[in-house]
Every structure is written in C-alpha cells, then in structure tokens.
C-alpha cells in the first residue's frame, strides 16, 4: 500500500469513528452551517462535537502548518481529505472567512506573532471575521475608498463607512481597508485588523430582495486601532487586499467543492419528476456545464497547489462559477413551479428556494463583478491591448 493509500485508509477510519451521523446530512439552511465565533450557538450537540474533534486534529484547516492550528497535510493528502468528506457527504466542520480569506493573507503577509495568534484562533473557530472592503462610493472601483485612519502615534483613529459587510452583525473582528495616505491612491491604503466591540463600531443589517440580511452597513466613529494590528507594511495594504481577493474569488467560485459543483437533473427528477422534454434538455445541458466546471475546480486547486495555475485564474473561475450558480437557481425555480414561489411556507422551509434563488444574484456582484472579472482575464491572462 502506498503512503497515500495508507493515509486514505487512516482518514476513512477516523471519519468513520468521529463524524456524527447528523453531520453526514446535506446542509438545509443557513443555521446548519457552523461559523464559530464568540457568540455562536451550536444548533446541535453533533455540530459542536464534530467541530471539536476536527479542531483537535487540525482538520478545520487541513493544509495549514501544525504550528498555526492546521494538520500540516500535503496537497495530495488535503485532496484525499476533501474526497473522503465528499464520499460520505460530511459537512465541512467550520465555515469561516478567516479560513478562506484572511488566513491565506496572514500566511503570506503576517508576522510570526500574528500567525500564531490569529491563525490559531481561526483554526479553532474562536473568532468570526468579517471583511471591510466596499464603501458606498467604492464598489468595482474599490481603490477609491475613503475610510480614513488618522495617525496618532501608537494608534490610528479610524472614521468612515463600509457596506456589504457580510455578517458584520455576527462577526467578532474585522479585516479592513483603511486609507492612511490621502495623497497616494494605490499606495495609501493599509490593511488593519480590529475588534468589532471597539467603541465607535456600529453595524446595521441591510434588507435584501431575498428578505434576508446577510450584508450590513458598518460605521466607524473615532475607532482606535493599535499600530501592531496592521498586516503587511504601512500604505501597502492594497497588495494584501489583492492577494486576499484572489482567495475570496476562489471561495465564491465554488471551486473548493460543495453543492455548486453538483449536477441537478437527478435531484429535480427525484422531487416530482421531469415531464417536459425541453426542461429535461435544459437540465442536461446544465449538468454538463456543472460537471465540467467541477473538473475545472479540481484542476485549478491541483495546479494552484504546485504553482502551475495562472495567478489570475481565480478571476475566470469566479466569473464562470457564479454565472453557473445563477443558472442553477433559475432552473431550480423553473422546475419547482409554483411551490418554489412560496415565500414563508413550512413546506419550503421558509421560502428557501425563492430566497436562495434571489441570493445567488449577488454572486456575480460580490467580490468583483463578472464584468470586472472579464476585464482582469482580458488584461492579465489574454494580454489584450489597452485592457
């Protein structure tokens, strides 16, 4: 038996003994998702136990170094971990912007002290993070952001407003882009970390077309941020921000796995059948794109792990993955008929189909619009003139 086969057997045995049956059922609602953090209420004992067992082994962040709370797995081993989770339909133990976005940026730009402290907290699910990027006047043109941090010697005093801050009302800390030099557009932004309970931070949920409020407005009124809470160099936060955006786009693209890579024809067929040849054809063509995109996600991750992926490839992935996900939900609505229109019935678990469908419309806007993604691909990958 090769080392990898032995590793697979070990993971299988461990999952068999440690993954509770309840955690092997598909996520139905947002509150099935374990986000961790100071104020998180576990939905069940199984959810809590599953997180604790994974934390003890470093499996919440399997490919991070052990010193920072990971399991220190190689690329091939981490792939096996994902495959074995998928094989038994196990939920990921911890969903976290800390894992998907801030973590990779800290691994690259953080000091050793920051890595040990913050990465460890993230790996253990102790701190829930939110992202302070967009502002009311700075969407696609993010670099025009105005939130300002005034230098007060050993700290900054931050004033301004962020918008579309996902789960800001539930987050413990924020990673935030703050202008620290008004004279310099790109090299005048710093990447700061601070506690959401710091005096002067307030949040206000934004009601969306889905009726839900996953995004917030976040206000900063004379918020004091100590100087050691900067990641990377002063005024070079844009480098950190861009690097992190690559990971955010990868996350939103769904390349890492989960429902966004799945075919849907068989699922629709199980729930009431497909009695229309045109719908069947649309589902089949969708399934082809979904399964092909799933292979793309796998290929991208494999190549990224060994440095073979084009650094701008997450932009293509984000574009393709989010447009696919919007199409998925259009089809699910069409297949669901009038039942899928129900807004708050018990049968639809509170309008999950229609609210989920509306939520996906943000996919091709958040983290960089599809149009911006295409601009980046044209410029950085295709090297088209003037792009």
């Amino acid at each position, binding site marked *: 038996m090769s080392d990898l086969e032995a590793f697979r057997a070990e993971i299988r045995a461990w999952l068999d003994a440690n993954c509770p049956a309840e955690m092997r059922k598909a996520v139905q609602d947002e509150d099935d998702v374990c986000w961790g953090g100071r104020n998180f209420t576990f939905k069940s004992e199984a959810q809590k136990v599953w997180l604790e067992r994974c934390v003890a082994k470093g499996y919440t962040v399997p490919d991070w170094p052990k010193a920072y709370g990971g399991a220190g797995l190689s690329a091939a081993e981490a792939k096996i971990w994902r495959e074995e989770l998928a094989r038994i339909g196990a939920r990921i133990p911890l969903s976290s912007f800390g894992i998907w976005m801030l973590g990779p940026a800290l691994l690259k730009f953080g000091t050793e002290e920051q890595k040990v402290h913050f990465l460890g907290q993230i790996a253990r699910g102790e701190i829930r993070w939110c992202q302070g990027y967009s502002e009311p006047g700075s969407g696609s043109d993010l670099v025009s952001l105005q939130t300002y941090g005034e230098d007060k010697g050993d700290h900054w005093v931050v004033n301004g407003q962020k918008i579309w801050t996902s789960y800001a009302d539930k987050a413990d800390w924020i990673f935030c882009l703050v202008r620290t030099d008004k004279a310099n557009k790109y090299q005048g932004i710093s990447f700061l970390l601070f506690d959401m309970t710091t005096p002067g931070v307030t949040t206000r949920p934004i009601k969306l077309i889905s009726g839900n409020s996953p995004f917030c407005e976040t206000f900063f009124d004379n918020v004091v941020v100590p100087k050691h809470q900067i990641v990377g160099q002063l005024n070079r936060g844009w480098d950190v921000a861009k690097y992190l955006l690559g990971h955010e786009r990868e996350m939103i693209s769904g390349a890492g796995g989960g429902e966004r890579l799945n075919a849907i024809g068989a699922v629709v067929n199980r729930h009431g059948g497909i009695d229309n040849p045109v719908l069947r054809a649309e589902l089949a063509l969708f399934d082809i794109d979904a399964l092909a995109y799933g292979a793309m996600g796998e290929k991208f991750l494999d*190549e990224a792990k060994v440095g073979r992926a084009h650094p701008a490839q997450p932009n293509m992935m984000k574009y393709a993955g989010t447009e696919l996900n919007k199409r998925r939900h259009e089809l699910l609505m069409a297949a669901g008929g009038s039942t899928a229109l129900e807004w708050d019935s018990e049968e639809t678990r509170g309008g999950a189909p229609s609210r989920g469908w509306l939520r996906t419309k943000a996919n091709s806007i958040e983290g960089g619009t599809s149009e911006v993604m295409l601009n980046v691909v044209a410029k950085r990958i*295709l090297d088209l003139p003037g792009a």
Partner: protein
Amino acid sequence: MPLYHTEDQAMLAETVTGFIADEGAIKTQLRRLRDAGDSAGYDAGLWKQFATMGLTGILVSEADGGLGLGHVEAGIVLREVGRNLTPSPFLSTAVLGATALSAASDDLKGRYLPGILAGDAVLALALDEGAKHRPERIALQAERAGNGFRLTGRKDFVVQGATADALIVAARTSGGDRDEDGVTLFAVPRDAAGIGHNAVRLVDSSIASHVTFDAVEVDGGTVIGDVDGGRALLNTVLAAGRIGAAAELTGVGSGAFAITTAYLKTRKQFGRLIGEFQALQHRAAHLYGELEIADAAVIKAQQLLDAGSSQADVMVSVAKAKASLATNLAVREGVQMHGGVGMTDEYDIGLYMKRDRALAEFLGDASYHADRVATLSGY
C-alpha cells in the same frame, strides 16, 4: 491523481507538440492535400513518421508491441492533431481500431497490428447507419453462413473507410435493431466481395464513406470478441473514440483561439487595435474560460477512463459535449472577430470552423451526449 500531466506525459507532450507543429502544419498537410484533390484523407509519409515515433501503437499493449499507454497520452497526440488540423488516421486507427483489436484473437491481431505499428495499415469504424450517431440501433445483419457470416446492410460516416485495410463493423447477429444484446463486431477486409464504397469529401476535406454490404461473406475468424456479446466491447471502443475526439476538439478550439487573439492584437480600426474594445475583450475572456473548462473535463474523463472508474462513462459524455460546445463557440467567435477576412479561404480560421463541425458530429454531437448524460443520471 492531480488533474495535470505527469512528468512523463509532459515530456511526451513537448515532443509531440514540436513534431506535429513541424510536420503536420496546416499549409504543408491540410491545404496541400486538399488543393491536390487527395482522395486518401491523409499523408502516408506522415503516418509512417507517427509509427516511427511509436505513436500509432500508443494504446496497444506492450505485450502486443505497442507503448501500452492510456487515454491521457492518446489525447496529447490528438490535441496537437486538432490544433494543426492535421489530416490523420490516428483517431480511427490508433484509438478506435486499436481498442477494438485489444479484444481480438491473436490471429486477428497478427493480421492487423504489425501494419498499424509500422504505419502501413489503417482501420476504420463502421458503425453509424444514417446521418446521425445512434449506436443504440444497429440493423446491419450478420447471418450465420457455413463456418462464417454473411453481412447485409449499410454503414455511413465511415471515416477513413475508403483507405482502411479493414473495417471494424458493428453488426446485428440476433434480436431486434434496438436490442442491447445480439451485437457482434467484425474486422472485415476493405475489399471483401460484396462491399461497395462510396467515398465522399466532407466539409472539412476529410474523406468518409457510405459503405454497402451486399451478402458479404466473412469467416468466423473475423469476429472480434464474442458473437452476440459485442455491445460491451463496442461501448469500450466508443468511450475511447469519444474522449479522443473530445481531446482533438480542444486542440481545434485552442488553435482557433490562438489565431483569433493574435488577430485582436494586430488588426486596427478606428485608429485602435480592435483588441482594445471592451465588447471584444469580454467575449474573448468568456471564451477563454469555456475552453479552460472543456480542457478540465477532458483530462478528468481521460484519467477516469485510464483508472477504469465507474464514473468514466458519464464524464466522457460530459467531456465530448463540453468540448464540442466550447470549440464551436471558439470557431464562431473566431470567424466573427476576424471580420471579412474570416470568410476567405486564405485565412485559416474558416478551416477550424469546418473541422469543428465534423468532429462535433463524430461519435455523437452535444445533444446526443446531453441526452446520454441525462439517461445515465437517471432522468
């Protein structure tokens, strides 16, 4: 297994890329043969060169004198064949023919494999009956006659049929046209008495035949595998051919895309390079993504097939359909973005459009494979 080439595969790709770019170029192969009114459909000297490099035996087992490699490796060759639009019997012979022969008797192998390995012989698959690929329906009759069989019926879209040493014929030995069982594969010599070839030139300048079988008598030794039990082998042959065609399609798509983006960077209108216009940039970027995704589907299916995975079947259809759709977009956008010159015979982009159309049809178009994906998925 990671979804990229191993070191050995990357080395093969490097060798093959250089070889086919040099020897199989559009100008010296496709255009030269076409303009000379060639009726063979390929250049015999180039086929010999393929053999010298071992490529004709890429899927033939080492025990049988081949390289004993897999679909990833065959796909490496086909991608370059596609990128250069090289007329080649590689897909019909080294993929379809060799896969069929892998299940043949030593006697049959001895009859055809040495010629294939030497680059002298060519094989063709005679499967379709009618203008569309419908392998579920096989009507060509093979009745028992003495020690052998008597074949009656017709086959269409037999690519390379007119020049093949033998046709791999899917025939009905029992049951009704649509029965799963009762299918038998035969290796029928091209010039067997009673065979009629009507070779026609296709839109992409390749040559395919309508073949009629008028009580063609063959001996029992021409049967490949089991009598009445040929369906499983046929499915294996089809999987190999479909993923091969998909790989060739991705080559066609990448070739079309390369000349199109190059054109966007040189053609000027309104005093600007047309590649500066966002309307074209976004379409090119979208197309890039589609081609990348098709590539991923193809290598995934190749690896699953090589590993003997039960998921290979559906992924092969996904790959064939996706490669067809993405490459079709590449050639349509390619001609449009070339503007008027895209309509001229002088520019190569139109040749890519023609090849895409023929390859997309071969062994099932996107709608055939979409239907198959749905059926295999249980709906």
